[in-house]
């Protein structure tokens, strides 16, 4: 029984820590607009370079 209680407490503690860390992390990304900066400054320029190199079949 004690083992079970200890396990439940451990699970609750892990869930709380994961929740707090998750909140801090995602709220920081949200407030600093980090995902948009990353996409605009790095991901899209990389993809655009790739799209510009594509050979497309334009015969219709």
């Amino acid at each position, binding site marked *: 029984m004690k083992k079970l209680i200890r396990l439940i407490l451990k699970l609750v503690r892990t869930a709380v820590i994961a929740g707090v860390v998750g909140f801090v992390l*995602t*709220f920081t990304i949200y407030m600093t*607009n980090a*995902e*948009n*900066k990353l996409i*605009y400054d790095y991901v899209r320029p990389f993809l*655009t370079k790739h799209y510009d190199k594509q050979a*497309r*079949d334009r015969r219709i």
Partner: protein
Amino acid sequence: MKKEIISFIDQKLQKYDPVWMAENGAGGQRTRYRDDGSGIARYREWRGVEDTFQDYVSWLKNVGYMGAMVAKDPVKIMKGIWEYRWMGSFLGSFAFVDRIFEGYRGRELDIANIHGNAIVRILTLRIGLILHNDARLGGGEMTDKMIGLDETIPPLFTAGFPTLNAEPMQTMPEFVVCDVDQHLDPYYIDVAESYGLAPDVCSRCSAETGVAIDDAFPVFGKLVLSTNQPCNASEATSMFQRRRFHQKGIEDYPFVFAMQHNTKNGNDYSKEELRQAIQKIEEVYGVKYDWDALFKAAKNMNHQNRIELEKWEIFATPYSPLSGISESLYKLVEWALVNGHDAYFNEVDDKVIEILRQAVRDQYLPYKGKTRHRAFLWGPSAMYYTDFPTWTQNCWGINIVLNMDSTMGHNMINTEDPEQALTDLALFSEKGVMRHHAVGGWDNVNAVWEWAKRLNCDMVICNDNVACKGMNGVHALLEEQAEAFGFHFLFLPHDLEDCRTIPRAEIRKAVNDYMSIVMGEEPLDPTLVDFDDAEAW
């Protein structure tokens, strides 16, 4: 206690709230943006504790919808991003949601985020489905059971084929994505023009043609229903697109609506066309039309339209926290893409109408009571400036109460008699996107004044798509009518999907000039009057 803590934090942090900054001469919405024209904010909008947290939760939901889309079939999604330029543009979706709801607070923000989440949910579901079944990327279990529809054909009638799935062909590669990224469609327009096509046509049709020439349509289904909706430029682009579909082994069937759609003859003609389109699908896919399945979806659509009619009554009051892009974008997606196929949208409508009813009971004044003018937005809007109504409210206090497209087909569909249902569906389909008032005779165009009066507007803003030959002919007539009826009136020049011809800044300038020179008013937020967003998505 909780209230006191929140109020304490709000007071300490209010200097970061752009609305407070504008009110107190300490900056405004553009203060938090980078000054490189990218439209990327250095940090997100601080809206006070409760609204910021609410917006954060909504953002998390959108992250969840996108994560779920990728998790369902990560390989196809990655292949799709690698294959299709337009998929790269969808990466701007988070910034898109931010900019269209900028400055929203309280109940306006509540509804906007409910709508925003519903839009992101349905778009991620549909993109996931399309890419999973795209024959170019390997295909899936539904590849041969999908029907391609021209995006201007309302898909409600396809609910009678419950084992098949109808997808609008152009919505993802060209239409909705132009809302998200203003720089995508100019690429496809250039492809069409470099092929030797005329550069002075409607940019929507030109962009669709460019997608076809660039071989950038996803490949699925055995049949595509092309159409003449909403106008004659669409007939031309349909002819180019069918060549590409034929190359992919997909048959094309022209589903032609009556152009003069306010007459019984016109309705009879469209009804017959609808009947023949159903027969064609039965023949190609070897399935029988299921009227009960149609009636089930029609009930969803009727439910949506009943609520829509009640919304219009509320929009006529000064107490509606639903207006501008929060209203029109949701309506466009719910009507043109969902069209009775997804009961989730009925739940969203039920939730939102409750908020609206409560707002009327409370005599709630939206936008902190800063609305100075109530405007009806007429004509198809610039797709590359979706956040225009947000800007008009934040900068000049012009509340776009309703948009022309939001008045699309709202007749009820009979859910018992197939013959009557076909008649109702024909009328419903004729009153489709960009077609209800811009095509089909002078009475349709001229209905703007009745709408503006009905919704207690003092201003009419008429979108002037410079490449639309049809509407170019009615300029002077509308100006005369505006004067006669006593509305503040301005034309808003734009090039629908080509942001280079008339950039967002020029659209703003048309309003700025009118508001400062003709109306002699001062902006609510001076940082919004003139700014550079040329390189923004």
